[in-house]
């Protein structure tokens, strides 16, 4: 199911956004859920939500009504890339979507 699209949304700090996106991609792959992980900076475009199956946000950019898919706040990853509660929430959501 590599066509499952995860979009990581961040702001000005492009380095951190790419690091988080890469980390999430590796983590999902390791967990057995290879996904198509992309990053999206709201500095470049915040009016148009990205097309994805799951949106992971480093800042409160979009609502689920706007994205049409589940939205998870992953702000704690700004400080700790392996923040357990946040990673668990992401894995649970991806797992549920995979099973569905």
């Amino acid at each position, binding site marked *: 199911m590599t066509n499952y699209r995860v979009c990581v949304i961040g*702001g000005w*700090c492009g*380095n*951190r956004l790419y690091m988080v996106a890469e980390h999430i991609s590796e983590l999902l792959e390791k967990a057995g859920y290879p996904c198509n992980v992309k990053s999206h900076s709201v500095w470049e475009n915040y009016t148009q939500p990205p097309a994805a199956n799951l949106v992971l946000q480093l800042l409160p950019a979009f609502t689920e009504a706007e994205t049409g898919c589940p939205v998870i706040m992953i*702000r704690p990853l700004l*400080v700790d890339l392996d923040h357990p509660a946040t990673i668990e929430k992401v894995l649970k959501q991806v797992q549920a979507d995979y099973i569905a």
Partner: protein
Amino acid sequence: MSSRIYLDYCATTPIHASVREQILRALDTSFGNPSSMHWAGADSKQMIKQARVDVADGIRCLPDELTFTSGATEADNLALFGTLRRFPANNAHFITSSIEHHAILHAAKQLEHDGYSVTYLPVNEYGLVNPEDVRRAIRPETKLISIMYVNNEVGSIQPIAEIGRIAREYKILFHTDAVQAIGLFDVNVDQLNVDLLSLSAHKIYGPKGIGALYIRSGLELIPMIVGGPQEHSLRAGTENVPGIAGLGASMNVVRQGRADERVRLGGLRKYLVDGLQAISPAVIVNGLDEKVAPHVLSVSFIGVDAEMLLIRLNGEGIAVSLGSACNSKSIEPSHVLTAMKLPREQIESTLRISLGMPTTRDELNTLLGVITRVLPRVLVQ
């Protein structure tokens, strides 16, 4: 996007019409090298001479006590390195504060790396240095103290004259970075008891790339740039004539009406604070009202993601600034707000709104309207 509103005057200011005219005049008529012995050189030399007088009038010093630099960062560097490198590293101590601009803090780190001893003074919760802390930090080998006049993030006005008095008492040189002060405060180097003072043109409606360091007569500094006799041999290189002319003109622009502009901006700032606090009880103004510059407003929107708020405001054409910056590993909280010991949640929800000569009440009403509308959308869930 509707019309644009600029509220980031602490970062930089637009060029004033009269400054632009003066720069164009310099570009058109003063192309000669000021060091040349012919008429073309003399024209440029005269342009620089007049600008030196204008800038000197703005801070009440002698024209020859000014050294033009590429900006305040270079002026700060020259003040620190030029003073301290006259002494052996193991016998020179430097005092500064933890809320200085990075032009000072990074230079201080370099000095530490070179073996100099540095004390970083704390500030209170309002971002103010206690002069008695300065006195306590003084050692027999202290050679220089540098404390900024007005902080660029929260606007706290430091007790410069008082610190200068202490420095005098101990015969220690005193430098201040007055970049955020010269536009609104009647700077008088004698009354402030300063020996060195940095300033920049682009914070006072002048061009970028030009600034100056005031050096009290009789002081000897070691130059950082060598290769010519320009600027009393302290700053080699052919002078930036249009920039210098622009700095002189920008000083003339702000010098005329500092007191009136202080009152006007103070009124606008209060209007903005009242408006923001009416929008949400979770709005906290950082700094102490009586000791804050009228053009700076550091405000925390508790529970709000400040970056997203800034993005939304930018999307509506409103330019403000953030209290934190990112590095390659994480979002770095502002060193100023951190030194004030504000909680991390407060720091991360902080915006800096800074006002300037073109700012109007209508602009602030637009800002308040947009914030009212977008605030519920930028809450940290």
